Every structure is written in structure tokens, then in C-alpha cells.
């Protein structure tokens, strides 16, 4: 595929073109935060906003002439591909037996265009693919949403303060997994085309040729961005640094701070843990039990939930110490065994959205101390 270029004021045309055939999910302002949600109008994109992200803090202000100067908010693909609450199936149980039906709307094809997705998000999506598509059983719901999505990525030029994607080999540049990847140059947008679908979207739009100068401008901008990234994890130390330290005193120290609130796991684009349960309605029960009907629902869960590892007669991880250890060990060590790479893409969300500002990079570093 080739590259293309589009004038700044024409980017909107891509949006409008997509809108004719897609539901569009993209960055939008909600309160004081940039979330991902359905957007109906190109102007909904919070152009020129920049956030200051710290450990447990997020502040938004407008200060840039660039459109995509902001980085990532709390949401990622996860919210849409493996939604927080999802119906697995509905059931009816009567004397005669049980009948189970899968909601057809769940598998219904909704063509969705995700715009403004970052390299770390796309990398995380590919990790979710491994979980939901490459295991022993394909997750049908995820699969259909995934196949009906179109991805317009944005190369990050201004990292967030908690980002460390470069050390996780996940960003800031989008290398694959996109239909169109956009780089905001000084006076235009560089469009890299990843798929035939991506090319089709641009057909007939006022696009220009790309010059070498444009390409080198992109390279230098991304290099510049990399330099601004403050945090890092030494991937070469993984997983042994964790495997060697299951009893490190630092875990207890973290447990003193950690609230086991689960925020880190909910915002993490790769944390996939969930729970299913039967949801009954009083109206679904007939007087002559055992006739009843309801739905089996799957919700996001978290290894921080106290009964997550409960079995009859006990809980495998009653302490917060063990639950935090489980989380970080999974992200940075177990994942490598399970799926061949760490389960972290360095987006920094868990650091920003932890109410008490626990920083995974710092905690990992602390395991070095003897």
C-alpha cells in the first residue's frame, strides 16, 4: 500500500466518509476527561487539548494548535470489543427442560470505525486477540465485533507523562494492525494505508502525494516523542525479576497503599478478567417453580475482587498483598509464558487512574532492592 497526504482542513472529510457506513468511536470530552465514545460530529474530537497525567492525577487543558495533542484517557478498545457488561445467552427453564438462545443482536454485524487510536491501544488489541481468538475456543462476540471494525490510528507525537510504550515495544509509532495511520505534520496529515479497506475509504477524497520530506518529518517527530517519554520498564529483566521475588517485602509495602479497588485492571487495555452470572427477573419466575427465565451476563471483573479466587471452603488469595502480586505478576511475567509477550503495552493508564497513584514501573524497579 502507499501513503497519502491530506490537508488539515480536509481530515473531516475522512470522518464524514466513514460516517456514512460506520458507527464511529473516538475521543470525546466527558466532564474533565477524554473518553472513547460514539461521536456524531468531527467537532466532538477534543482538538488542542493536552492532559497532565501524574500518579493518580489527570488534568486537562487546552493549549495546542495541533488537533491530536492529547494522549490516552481511561478507555481503550476493551470497552467495545469485550464490553463491560455483555449477555452471553438467555435461558428458559421449565419442567420440560431448558432452552438456551443466543441473542442475535450480539453477533449482529455493526460496522464500527475506531478513530484516533494510539499505538499502545492497537498493540493491546492484538494481545486481546490472543486471549479471545487464539485460545481453545473462539469468543464469538469478540470475533464478530473485531471483524467488523475499522481502525484509524494516530501516531503519538506528545506522550503522556505516564507513558512507557517505547520500552514495551508497543509505540509510540503504529507499525501494524491499522487500516489508516495518521501522523499530524506541521501543515498536513500524513496517511499511511494499511489495508485495502483503508484505501477504499480515501478513494475520491482530495489527497496529495507524499514527499520524502513529509516522511522524514514524521520520523523526526516520532523520535522527538520517544525522547519525551519519561518512564520505562526493562523488558530484558522480565519475567525473572518477578519469578525470583514472590516473597519480596515490597509486596507487603504495596499492600499498605493499594486499595484493591480494581481501577488499574478496569482501565488496563489488556486486563481481560471477567465473571459470568445468571441474572433473573422476578417476572421470569412462575409460581410453579422451577420455571424460570433470565440471562447469563458477563461483566468485567478483576483479580483484586476479594472473591475472585474463592472456591468452596476458601479463598486462594485473601490478602491484598497476594492480589496485587497476582496482578503485576500476570501482567509482566505470567503473560510471557501464556501468550509470548508481556501483558503490558506501557500506556500508563493504571498509573494515572490508580486513586492512590501506585506506579507499576516504580514497583517493579523496587523489586531489585534486596
Amino acid at each position, binding site marked *: 500500500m502507499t501513503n497519502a497526504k491530506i490537508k488539515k482542513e480536509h481530515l473531516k472529510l475522512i470522518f464524514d466518509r466513514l460516517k456514512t457506513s460506520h458507527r464511529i468511536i473516538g475521543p470525546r470530552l466527558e466532564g474533565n476527561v477524554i473518553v472513547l465514545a460514539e461521536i456524531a460530529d468531527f467537532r466532538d474530537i477534543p482538538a488542542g487539548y493536552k492532559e497532565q497525567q501524574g500518579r493518580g492525577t489527570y488534568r486537562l487543558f487546552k493549549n495546542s494548535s495541533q488537533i491530536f495533542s492529547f494522549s490516552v484517557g481511561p478507555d481503550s478498545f476493551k470497552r467495545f470489543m469485550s464490553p463491560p457488561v455483555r449477555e452471553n445467552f438467555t435461558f428458559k427453564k421449565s419442567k420440560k427442560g431448558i432452552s438456551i438462545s443466543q441473542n442475535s443482536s450480539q453477533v449482529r454485524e455493526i460496522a464500527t470505525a475506531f478513530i484516533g487510536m494510539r499505538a499502545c491501544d492497537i498493540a493491546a488489541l492484538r494481545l486481546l486477540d490472543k486471549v479471545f481468538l487464539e485460545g481453545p475456543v473462539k469468543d464469538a462476540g469478540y470475533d464478530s465485533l473485531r471483524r467488523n471494525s475499522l481502525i484509524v490510528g494516530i501516531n503519538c507525537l506528545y506522550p503522556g507523562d505516564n507513558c512507557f510504550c517505547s520500552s514495551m515495544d508497543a509505540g509510540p509509532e503504529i507499525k501494524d494492525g491499522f487500516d489508516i495511520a495518521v501522523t499530524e505534520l506541521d501543515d498536513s496529515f500524513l496517511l499511511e494505508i494499511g489495508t485495502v479497506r483503508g484505501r477504499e475509504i480515501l478513494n475520491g477524497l482530495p489527497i496529495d502525494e507524499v514527499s520524502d520530506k513529509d516522511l522524514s518529518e514524521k520520523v523526526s517527530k516520532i523520535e522527538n516523542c520517544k525522547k519525551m517519554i519519561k518512564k520505562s520498564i526493562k523488558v530484558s529483566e522480565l519475567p525473572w525479576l518477578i519469578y525470583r521475588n514472590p516473597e519480596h517485602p515490597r509486596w507487603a509495602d504495596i499492600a499498605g497503599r493499594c486499595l484493591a479497588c480494581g481501577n488499574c485492571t*478496569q482501565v488496563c487495555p489488556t486486563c481481560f478478567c471477567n465473571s459470568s452470572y445468571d441474572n433473573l427477573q*422476578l417476572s421470569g419466575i412462575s409460581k410453579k417453580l422451577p420455571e424460570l427465565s433470565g440471562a447469563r451476563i458477563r461483566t468485567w471483573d478483576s483479580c483484586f*475482587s476479594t472473591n475472585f479466587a474463592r472456591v468452596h471452603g476458601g479463598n486462594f488469595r485473601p490478602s491484598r498483598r497476594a492480589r496485587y502480586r497476582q496482578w503485576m505478576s500476570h501482567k509482566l511475567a505470567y503473560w510471557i509464558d501464556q501468550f509470548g509477550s508481556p501483558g503490558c503495552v506501557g500506556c500508563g493508564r493504571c498509573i494515572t487512574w490508580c*486513586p*492512590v497513584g501506585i506506579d507499576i514501573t516504580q514497583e517493579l524497579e523496587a523489586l531489585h532492592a534486596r
Partner: protein
Amino acid sequence: MKRPRIGVFKFTSCDGCQLTILNMEDEILDILELFDIAYFREATDKPLRGQFDMSIVEGSISTNWQKEDIVDVRERSRHLITIGACATSGGLQALRNWASLSSYKKYVYPSPDMITALSTSTPISDHVYVDYELWGCPINKDALSETLLSFLIGKKPGIPRYSLCMECKRHGIPCILVSNEEPCLGPITKAGCGALCTSFGRPCYGCFGPKDDANIESLMRYFQNLGLTQKGCISLLDKMNSYAYRKVRIEGSK
């Protein structure tokens, strides 16, 4: 099938939680089909008689006679569940536990001696064995219906024990603690309300009581870093569930 006999009892409270039963407009007729509401003062004239398969108890224990009555209710009940902050945690009125009763009485009543009340307001579980506790001020409708259903078909109710944050994030509500520095009790409070306050952009004020293994100290330290005074922290926790939050703080959490 014989319908289980249900009793609804009230101790010291605002009636809001038992009103939740009447507020289940869509379900109340189903409930009446499935259960025999044999005692429910707020809604029927039926006299108190016999045993109950399940008693639903609202309100806290705050007088001597209630201490005896709750034992009577327990003796009549195969299962006893408590509903609401009053019954599970003493309620707002438990604030008297940390003050002087005589000055309270004096402030409210011209002739305080005529008033007999205990110096404490305590949860039902401090007095009798409770089979199941439904938290919230008030309780959530759906949780009540889940509890009734679970009782009917013989399973443990699936009521969340994790933090409100989880619910808040599921709803996609931007975190006001992180983005606005507003002291929100979400991280140490049980989910179950549907992330109501935060969906209105206001910090959680702890209606649903402390979540499992709430690390209150850590959050309070953090609030103090944000500039809240120690007194301010206490006043955040000293609301409808003051008794429960204080208990967690004293007993600590692992």
C-alpha cells in the same frame, strides 16, 4: 408450591428501605404471587402471628425494647436478612455513638428525661445472628429482587462485594477523584448503587458501606496529601455507615 412466609420488620430507621419493596412497582405483583407477605406494617393490617420463612429487617437497635424485640423476630424466623445502612451498620443515627446522649436529648427535647433511648444505635448483627445483609442507604431495588429470588430458588444472592470504582468504570464514568481531586469514597465503598453519585459528577459519600477489606487508612492518607484535614476525613466517613467504617479502621484490614 407453598409460598414462603415473609415478615417485614422495622426498628429505628427512615422507612426508606421498606419503601423500596413498595417501589418495586413492576415486580410487586409477582412478589405477591411468589411470597406470602404475612407481616408488613407499612402496607397491611395483618397482625403479627407465627413463624416466618424469611424476615426482612429494617432499622437499627437504639432502645431497650428493641433489643428484646429483635430476639423475638429472630426466634420467629428461619432466615433473617437485614436491609439498609440502619440495620447493617447502625445508620446515620449511630453518630450518637460518638457523642453524648444526654446533650443530644437535651438539645432535641424540652423534657429529656421522658425519652428513653440507648446511648448507641447498633446494627442488627450486633444482637442476633443475621443470615444475609443487604447494604445501602437506601438499598437497591434490583439487589432486593435478587435476594428474594435467590432465597426462592436456593442460592446465595449475587450481590457485589467489590469497590464502587469497578461499577463506575463499567459505566464509563470519568473518575472525579483522579480528574478533579474530589474526595470520593468509591475505592473503599461497596458497589451496588449503580454508581449513582459519580454519574451525577459528585463524589461517592459511602451509602453502601465499606467494601470487603477496605484500605481506609491508605485512602485517608491520600486525601490528606490532597489537603483534607484529619477532621475532614473523619467527617467524610461519619455518615450513614459510620459504625461500619469505624469498625474496619479499628479492626484493620489485611
